[in-house]
């Protein structure tokens, strides 16, 4: 007697218990989706199987950032409603087969998500992927609750701004201890920090007091990579790509040095560039 081999579907691996991590921030536009896409790629590049869930129902973005919009046929709500099988709704990445996306519904409302079903779905996906990463919508209402319900870890993204720090503080309060939130400071401009014109990572974390997972510079190339739908973590070199890979290594439990910030002057015009590293 032999078992019938199932069709090669994205969830073909046998049961495991992956980690479910929600990427959240409270404030909108601080880089949750960008972080989700890049960490997805960086973790997948390490050979892990990664499923990204866009929980920003009504404002679907993650597929665009990943460059997968043309492949998306079904979405999270179809799966939660039970009208489409998970395997049929999942979209495999173009660059890395171990990365998949479950897109959000663009034409539905956040409150159409059934919290219990969402929890069960994440639970189920954890059996098939090493990482299930959930891109949380802005805000602290229903959409936030549905995004965090299935997660057991949280990464909070914060820009060095008063409003962003305040909102992260609120979100961390709402999350409580259960999610052991870790911090990514995004869009840092070291040259401005040096001039005293921007909060430093230390300033931010003197208030938030969270384990610092990493620091991402304000990177003009991120606009280009988003235009192309090819997250910057796919690049072979560059400080920002390296910073995302260092964060992925740290998430995976590797001993990564604390993120360092260097202000490097290059060229005749004294252009200020930022170097972030630590994965070496």
């Amino acid at each position, binding site marked *: 007697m032999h078992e019938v081999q199932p069709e090669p579907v994205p969830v073909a691996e046998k049961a495991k218990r992956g980690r479910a991590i929600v990427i959240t921030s409270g404030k909108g536009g601080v880089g949750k989706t960008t972080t989700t896409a890049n960490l997805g790629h960086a973790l997948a590049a390490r050979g892990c199987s990664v499923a990204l869930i866009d929980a920003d129902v009504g404002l679907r973005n993650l597929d665009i950032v990943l460059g997968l919009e043309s492949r998306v046929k079904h979405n999270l709500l179809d799966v939660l409603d039970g009208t489409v099988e998970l395997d049929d709704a999942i979209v495999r990445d173009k660059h890395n087969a171990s990365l998949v996306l479950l897109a959000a519904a663009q034409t539905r409302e956040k409150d159409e998500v059934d919290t219990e079903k969402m929890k069960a779905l994440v639970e189920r996906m954890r059996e098939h992927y090493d990482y299930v990463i959930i891109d949380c919508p802005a805000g602290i209402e229903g959409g936030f609750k549905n995004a965090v319900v299935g997660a057991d870890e949280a990464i909070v993204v914060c820009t060095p*701004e*008063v409003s962003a*720090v*305040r909102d992260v*503080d*609120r979100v961390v*309060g709402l999350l409580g201890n259960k999610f052991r939130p870790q911090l990514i400071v995004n869009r840092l401009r070291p040259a401005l*920090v040096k001039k*005293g*014109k*921007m*909060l*430093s990572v230390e*300033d931010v974390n003197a*208030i938030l007091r969270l384990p610092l997972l990493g620091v991402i510079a304000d990177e003009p190339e991120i606009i280009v990579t988003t235009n192309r739908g090819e997250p910057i973590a796919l690049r072979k070199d560059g400080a920002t790509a390296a910073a995302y890979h260092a964060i992925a290594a740290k998430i995976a439990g590797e001993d990564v040095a604390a993120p360092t910030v260097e202000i490097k002057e290059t060229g005749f015009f004294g252009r200020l560039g930022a170097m972030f590293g630590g994965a070496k």
Partner: protein
Amino acid sequence: MIEFFRKLFAPTNSSQTAKERLRLVLMTDHLSLAPDMIEQMKRDFIDVIAKYVEVDRDKIEINFEQQDKALAMLANVPILAVNRNGGGGDGGKKREEPATVEAAAATGSTGSTATPALPRRRRRKKSAPPAVAPSNASPAPAG
């Protein structure tokens, strides 16, 4: 003088301003998010005052206010009677009119040179004797 220079140079360092604003706004946020703690603190505070003077518990008002450089706790505590041996110093002089203690506790003003957060004396009855500020509860300069 130091204050003058500090102010003069303050605008260039906007991250310092951001830090200050953040610190204050978060204190306010955290207070409003911990009503149980606040209530307990108010009760404890009143209990401490009541050890020394007889207070009108129903008329006590305790509020928090964001001031220039600090978050201040403003307390308005009507006093009904002072013990004969009380710390007031005026040896058991009986008053008809309840005295009022206005205490202000300001949290974390920046540095020692920063302007002390003086309580705005609100709702002070014209007929009431001068408010007594307990030295342990006010950052205002003594005298």
